[in-house]
């Protein structure tokens, strides 16, 4: 994900003058990459696991600590405001969780407001899974009369001015007429009642996760005190999103106050909660994963450089994970941060010790053998996409096979998986009629054929397809060549050709290729109707043979 920052703003938050080169180098070592610099604007690519770095403030916090300007766990003091969000019954199947925070004295100018909105968008699109798991709203605190109510309402009873509009709309109209309703409506539309957030005077704050009210939910440059809420379907996700955005705003000189959420069963949730999670990891586990011999204090130093709190014990380290980190699921996630804190630039590659003997797969060996023989016969190897069109595989070939088909192709030309190489070769030939004749081409590659009993309902088969085109072609040559190929694969006396009627080929000029009493392929002179379908003006003889995946035919 790309975060756009103003360089002067970023550097002032970091608190140190850095050259662009030094900044780029530092970002590289903490998983972020500079994509573009234009004037005062820098675009930084942040990895999706570091949701806490999706803002200028978050990036500055990580850089500041990595450069050892301010290391260790940052404390975000929270004052209890006593304000309440009351959750009404009936939301448990719709969007059951909510939490909130209050920020006072936050800096706000046009640019900053735009950036806060970006952070909100970035967080809800990835971490919030396009608002379905969590969505965020920012409001003008001073205009709200607490307590706030979060409850289900009938769509027709929901009436307010949505953000960007000066007139009122009701719920169903928002879904059809407001761009956010059209985009995100599907998340709640199928419920009989929709979640609504309103204050004690019945003034609407928002219709989560669709749109804020134009009155209470619109930040201006005058706004200093903010109310932030997150609603969603997964409590940890909702908490993490609130922590990330609250911590970011607190970096803009905001002081944090908490809000009490009261659920219908009288459960109380005081948010935001910045209590760090505790973990204990053994020094041995850390060193054996990274391949170093770090002491307890070394590890503490590395962790503090990554914004953790840490204390060394005799054989282990106690770790405090910052509450804005949502990517720490396991000790290995902390160990990675220790490696990053130690510095990837300080890690020296070790000489690999694992001794094994290598080998090619039987299918690759057989394919190589077939390719060598085809080259010996004077054919040029070609390679095509596995994906093609149903017209190429069926209509033009006068076939009607069942084909493995994708649901969401970007183009019909690449929408199905090839079930045979011949159509792909004919398609290739149709595009090259300006090139010198004779044309002798072949491809060795996999084809896929539906198979109900298989685990993935598909048999994937290695195959060789071959065609020759000239002003005059001869089926006998083709038969001789197939004979050469099969005999040199050790199949002398094990194969036979049996005449067959196949619409792709001229009647009386096609044969099934049978190996060990199993049909493995076909050869023949391509029917003029098929040539016409492909727009080919020269006669063609062709064959295709399925190869075994293992050693046995």
């Amino acid at each position, binding site marked *: 994900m790309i975060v756009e920052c103003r360089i002067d703003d970023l550097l002032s938050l970091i608190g140190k003058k850095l050259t662009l080169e030094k900044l780029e180098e530092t970002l590289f070592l903490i998983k972020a990459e500079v994509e573009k610099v234009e004037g005062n604007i820098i675009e930084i690519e942040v990895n999706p696991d570091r949701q806490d770095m999706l803002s200028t403030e978050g990036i500055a916090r990580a850089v500041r600590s990595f450069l050892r300007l301010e290391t260790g766990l940052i404390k975000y003091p929270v004052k209890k405001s006593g304000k309440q969000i009351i959750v009404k019954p009936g939301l448990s199947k719709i969007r059951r969780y909510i939490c909130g925070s209050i920020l006072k004295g936050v800096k706000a100018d046009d640019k900053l407001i735009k950036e806060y909105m970006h952070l909100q968008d970035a967080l809800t699109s990835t971490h919030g899974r396009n608002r379905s798991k969590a969505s965020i709203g920012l409001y003008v605190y001073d205009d709200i009369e607490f307590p706030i109510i979060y409850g289900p309402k009938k769509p027709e009873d929901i009436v307010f001015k949505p953000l960007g509009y000066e007139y009122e709309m009701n719920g169903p109209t928002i879904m059809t007429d407001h761009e956010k309703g059209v985009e995100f409506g599907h998340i709640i539309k199928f419920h009989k009642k929709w979640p609504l957030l309103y204050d004690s005077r019945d003034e609407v704050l928002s219709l989560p996760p669709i749109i804020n009210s134009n009155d209470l939910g619109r930040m201006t440059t005058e706004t200093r005190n903010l109310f932030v809420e997150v609603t969603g379907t997964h409590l940890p996700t909702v908490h993490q999103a609130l922590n990330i955005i609250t911590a970011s705003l607190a970096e803009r000189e905001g002081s944090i106050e908490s809000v009490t959420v009261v659920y219908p069963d009288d459960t109380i949730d005081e948010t935001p909660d910045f209590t760090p999670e505790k973990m204990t990891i053994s020094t041995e586990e850390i060193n054996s994963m990274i391949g170093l011999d770090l002491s307890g204090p070394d590890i503490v130093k590395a962790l503090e450089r990554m914004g953790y709190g840490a204390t060394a014990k005799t054989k282990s380290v106690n770790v405090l994970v910052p509450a804005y980190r949502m990517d720490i699921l396991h000790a290995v996630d902390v160990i990675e941060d220790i490696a990053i804190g130690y510095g990837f630039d300080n890690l020296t590659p070790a000489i*690999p010790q694992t001794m094994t003997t290598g080998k090619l*797969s039987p299918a690759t060996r057989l394919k190589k053998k077939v390719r060598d023989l085809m080259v010996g016969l004077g054919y040029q190897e070609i390679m095509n996409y596995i994906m093609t069109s149903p017209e190429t595989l069926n209509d033009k070939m006068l076939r009607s096979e069942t084909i493995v088909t994708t649901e969401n192709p970007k183009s019909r030309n690449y929408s199905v998986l090839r079930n045979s190489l011949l159509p792909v070769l004919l398609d290739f030939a149709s595009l*090259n009629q300006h090139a010198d004749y004779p044309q002798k081409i072949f491809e060795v590659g996999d084809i896929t054929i539906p198979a109900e009993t298989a685990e993935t309902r598909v048999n994937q088969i290695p195959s060789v397809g071959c065609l020759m085109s000239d002003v005059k072609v001869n089926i006998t040559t083709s038969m001789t060549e197939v004979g050469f190929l099969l005999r040199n694969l050790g199949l002398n006396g094990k194969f036979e050709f049996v005449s067959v009627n196949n619409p792709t080929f001229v009647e009386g000029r096609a044969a099934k290729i049978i190996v060990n009493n199993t049909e493995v392929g076909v050869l023949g002179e391509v029917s003029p109707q098929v040539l016409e379908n492909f727009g080919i003006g020269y006669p063609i003889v062709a064959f295709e043979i399925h190869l075994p995946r293992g050693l046995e035919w």
Partner: protein
Amino acid sequence: MSEQLTEGERTVLEELLNLNQRVPTSDLANRLKQGEERVISILNSLVSRELVEIHTKERVTYSLTDEGAEYVDSGLPEVRLFGGVKELGGKATFDDAVAKADLDSKTKGIAMNWARRTGWLQIVKEDGTTVLKTLVEEAESEVTDIITQISQGKESHQSSDSLNQALERKLVVENITKSYETEIIGAKTSEIEKLLSAGTTGIGNITPELLASGAWKDKSFRPYNVDIQPVYSNYGKKHPYAEFNDWLREIMVGLGFTEWFGPYVETEFWGHDTLFVPQDHVAREVQDQFRVSSPYDHGKIIDRKYYNAVKAVHENGGDTGSKGWDWPYSEEVATRLCLRPHTTPVSMRYLYEHREGPQKMFIIDRNFRSETLSATHAQEFNQCEGIIKDKGLTLRDLLGYLTSICRGVGIDKLKFKPGQFPFTEPSVETFGKHEKLGWIELGGSGIFRPEVTRPLGITDTVLAWGLGSGRLYMAAMGINDIRDNYSRDLNWLRRSHFVR
């Protein structure tokens, strides 16, 4: 350079002496019943011996473009527009004149532009509408004359303003054909006669009879011209991309890796779940990955015990010490069929069957992403994937393996960046300094998470990496357009080669 003449040179020189004048090479080729190309190749050799001269002649002819041919039938737009105004009494609004002249929206702009430039029509604004007035009696268009003449077969023309205008308007194109003429250099005639009389003796073809009789002894052999560049010819050979992949396989086997196979069509269980990618991850959505919809859209779970272990890891971390994703795990999603978006499921299938002891596996094969085909993106791309499983392997060992593999493909200078993949922790992105492209991203790697290995009962460390091998191929071949990796141009394939 041989003093004597080859058979080909002899016949050409004899014919030229015989003709005793400058002749077009095409005539000479006809007389000798030879291809013109071959005759010119012989003549070139004679030019270098300073016996003959070749003169190049250029002939300029003209032919109509589709647009030009259209105007021969329908008339030039400006002529038609003028005609329209005239028929309406010499003054008309623009719209009326266009309607009268039956011009379409594309040609009406052209008509207006040229009617003004020729000075046939005056354009004025009256009450906000554009009004046209005729300024001349008749529209005399030399461009019309030119294109009519060309359409009647008159190919050559003197340069003129109207011809230039027709060229500029892309109604007419210029065709330049080159032809060659040749003659003997007069002063060399006697030298040539001498060469011709001297060279008639000697043995041509060596035959079995000649060898049996021994008649070749004490005789000379007629020399052939062996100093020429051979012509291009089309024999059988391999595809350069296939040869590149063969080369990569050779390197991997040399490093002790065993090649493995996995299918293009995968269940999302293998494609993502076994790799601890959350079931609601964006990479699994339709805009990123191909879903298979027909004839089957869901596959099967073949091992319930393993399935349950993976499910537990997703829901709550199972017995791995992880928190898991704390989210309900769906069998419907797990069995959904997709085209594999990376080769990593092949590594999982290998580990599934090889849970004991040290292991090294690789695969070089196709992957699929739902992309629109363009110069930079393709719906199919190759990956060179590998894993190493052993006790006590570390992050530094991973960097060591990456270094050996990259050295194998000729990249010595590397830098490592911490990265992020759902299935590895720590994760590393490798950048290499390429001789032509500078620093390029080579691929992702890392140590498989416990959530990935423990459901298989594996406690050893597994190092894993995937190299974007298509990119290295493009660099090696000087290919800039990703579509050329699977080139459909037979001429290009016939002349391309991968050499290492």
